[in-house]
């Protein structure tokens, strides 16, 4: 494989294009609403209408507006022209398509009409998006490497291998200002530099695709929609740090992502884009998949590495950090899916271009998964620093059925609840941390006035309790006690003393736990205590507060606790 081969594949792919492209979403969200059946019906309708040489039906990745799936978009050019990457996505986006209504969509190509409703392309949900990571999502066919190559895929890897030294690549990443998208926001370039500087015969690159935060599905969508971008990003990283073996640790709960990755790795190997002597350089790199088995704690890097080694996924104290001693005690670079997916674009378009997007300390874009009590659930990608209000009210369309937004939960079980009053906060690492939450991996759960914050805190504490690995005492026993206290509050049996105990435990567990899971487990409690303390006080026992203490008057307005869900 040399660059000419790559260009030839891209040209061949482009030449085969047709004037009309019907794209059908084949990501997990739409698949669960039978988009497979829709695609088959579309194929049949095209055949029946005799339009095979004019119309291409393409299965693509996520088209973002997941709540309205299955989604189908039809792009059509004037006779003679073909649909190019640049012009794609201008046609109508049909919602909730069924196999029965699919044929009528094909009729529209010939000038007919359809009853299927189409989304408004001028809605802020679409116009306010800024795509880097999701640029190919919904456009390229994730199961065909040629489709990715035609969208300039693997060109960045070529440039890096043939024209840049590892140090130049690391410098470009430092200059771009990219920070880890897994949650903590550690500068990616700095991490790469540390691994690159550590001398060792064997180094590893790991992609953390163990997207465990409940309510987050960005990484799943990236893997299902554009798996090659992740592979290319990993290969560039491997060149930069001097690694020859990569692993992708992906959750067993994502079977579609696993199968797309397997296909992508196979295709890349066949074309020589993975393996030995890539682009006729001395660089060798192969990638293996490791399937998780249902343990949230394995998102923590040292636990993840233990799991890759086939052990119980328990974390170990850091230092030593993985960059010095990680997988099999070798220097290991470990980044999240979205981080790697940013890399090819940074190399292709330049570090300065990337650094020009976002805020001073948070560069680029961030993908968020909007879910919960919000009209438009789905995926959005926006520049860092976009105000939260713009995301949830304009793009997300606010709470459904005229409800009002009460809080936005970010960062999953490690994050916190941001009250509606703080919606004007720009979304970047530092602003969210100041509010007592975290950026996290990008899950954004919107809560309306029917959501009870103490119950939310209990929900997350139950999660942490179940997912605690049991190695260190504060997390193993502390989460049990905190959960017990929260349940006691919800049962209206707690006193002010219990609330103090809860706060004291939050501080202790946060300060003394071994890994990130325990250290951040109190966050949902602390942030709800900070912004919704009254809800806690309202639930305390009648005799818990002294005379004159607040909390009595509003007690009747608080709905009675429901029996807790789960077990």
């Amino acid at each position: 494989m040399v660059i000419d081969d790559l260009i030839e594949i891209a040209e061949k792919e482009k030449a085969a294009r047709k004037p009309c492209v019907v794209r059908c979403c084949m990501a997990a969200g739409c698949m669960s609403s039978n988009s497979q059946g829709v695609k088959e019906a579309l194929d049949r309708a095209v055949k029946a209408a005799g339009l095979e040489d004019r119309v291409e039906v393409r299965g693509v990745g996520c088209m973002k507006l997941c709540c309205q799936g299955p989604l189908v978009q039809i792009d059509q050019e004037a006779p003679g022209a073909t649909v190019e990457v640049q012009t794609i996505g201008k046609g109508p986006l049909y919602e909730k398509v069924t196999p029965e209504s699919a044929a009528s969509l094909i009729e529209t190509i010939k000038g007919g009409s359809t009853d299927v409703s189409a989304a408004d392309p001028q809605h802020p949900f679409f116009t306010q998006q800024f795509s880097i990571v999701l640029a190919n999502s919904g456009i390229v066919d994730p199961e065909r490497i040629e489709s990715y190559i035609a969208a300039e895929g693997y060109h960045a890897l070529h440039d890096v291998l043939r024209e840049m030294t590892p140090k130049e690549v690391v410098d470009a990443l430092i200059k771009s200002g990219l920070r880890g998208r897994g949650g903590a926001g550690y500068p990616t370039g700095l991490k790469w530099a540390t691994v690159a500087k550590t001398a060792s015969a064997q180094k590893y690159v790991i992609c953390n695709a163990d997207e465990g935060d409940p309510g987050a599905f960005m990484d799943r969508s990236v893997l299902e929609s554009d798996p090659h971008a992740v592979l290319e990003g990993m290969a560039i990283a491997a060149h930069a740090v001097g690694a020859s073996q990569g692993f992708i640790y992906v959750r067993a709960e994502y079977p579609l992502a696993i199968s797309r990755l397997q296909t992508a790795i196979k295709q890349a190997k066949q074309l020589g884009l993975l393996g030995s002597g890539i682009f006729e350089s001395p660089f060798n790199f192969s990638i293996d998949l490791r399937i998780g088995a249902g343990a949230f704690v394995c998102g923590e890097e040292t636990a993840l590495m233990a799991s890759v080694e086939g052990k119980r996924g328990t974390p170990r104290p850091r230092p030593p950090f993985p960059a010095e001693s990680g997988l099999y005690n070798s220097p290991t670079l470990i980044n999240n899916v979205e981080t790697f997916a940013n890399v090819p674009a940074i190399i292709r378009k330049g570090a300065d271009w990337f650094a020009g997007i976002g805020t001073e300390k948070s560069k680029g874009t961030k993908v968020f998964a909007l879910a919960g009590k919000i009209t438009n659930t789905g995926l959005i990608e926006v520049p860092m620093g976009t105000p939260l209000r713009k995301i949830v009210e304009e793009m997300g369309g606010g709470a459904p059925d005229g409800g009002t937004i009460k809080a936005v939960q970010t960062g999953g079980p490690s994050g916190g609840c941001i009250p509606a009053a703080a919606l004007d906060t720009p979304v970047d690492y530092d602003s969210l941390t100041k509010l007592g939450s975290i950026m996290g991996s990008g899950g954004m759960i919107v809560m309306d006035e029917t959501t009870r914050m103490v119950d939310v805190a209990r929900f997350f504490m139950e999660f942490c309790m179940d997912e605690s690995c049991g190695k260190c005492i504060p997390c193993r026993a502390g989460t049990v006690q905190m959960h017990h206290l929260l349940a006691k509050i919800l049962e209206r049996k707690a006193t002010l003393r219990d609330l103090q105990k809860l706060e004291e435990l939050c501080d202790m567990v946060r300060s003394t736990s071994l890994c990130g899971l325990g250290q951040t487990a109190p966050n949902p409690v602390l942030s709800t205590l900070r912004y919704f303390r009254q809800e806690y006080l309202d639930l305390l026992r009648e005799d818990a507060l002294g005379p004159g203490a607040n909390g009595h008057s509003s007690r009747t307005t608080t709905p009675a606790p429901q029996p807790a869900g789960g077990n």
Partner: protein
Amino acid sequence: MAARTFTIDGKHVSADESATILEAASEVGITIPTLCHLDGVYDVGACRLCLVEVTGVPKLLPACTTRVAEGMDINTDSERLRKYRRMTLELLFAERNHVCAVCVANSHCELQTLAYTLGMDHVRYEYTFPRWPVDNTHSLFGMDHNRCIMCTRCVRVCWHIEGAGTKNVSGRGARSQVISDLNQPWGTSETCTRCGKCVMSCPTGALFAKGVTVSEMERDRTKLEFIVTAREKKQWIA
């Protein structure tokens, strides 16, 4: 082999760069409370009792796994650390059924001793009173899961010193427990060599020799230490 100089509780100390804070402290007679640490086997940093403050580091660091560094200013005792250590012990006492009065290890128990020395005089958290079994099937030893604090010393000595691998941890979170082979009665284990190292290593009354009653389970750690260090100290030769 390079020496590092630093301070522990205001005292100037020097130690080899490979030393942990715990080792360096014990060298100069400063005791840091520990439960999961056991001389001779590798550390896991699980009990969090040995956490210390280091000036300039925002997080508390486990003394057992943190190596010393030049100029480090270490503080092993403060009101905050004492409070956290007491709370850790309270959590342990509330987690399983630690009833000293009827325990074989009463007055020879590291958990009990720590509670005394750290001033943990009562438990403010609700006892969970879990129903854990007692495994009395082994011909020489017994295991009472009610007394287990999951320090995993027994697991480590079984694998790293004896090489038997009979003991391991199953499950996770509060439901994790020490098992023998496939979570079967200890007496039916096909791998147990009946060496007794696990019993010697246990800090509480969870593992005991058969035939002992309340307060009679004393442990001889010198044997364990001998096995680990005899080679380097050239004690094999009679």
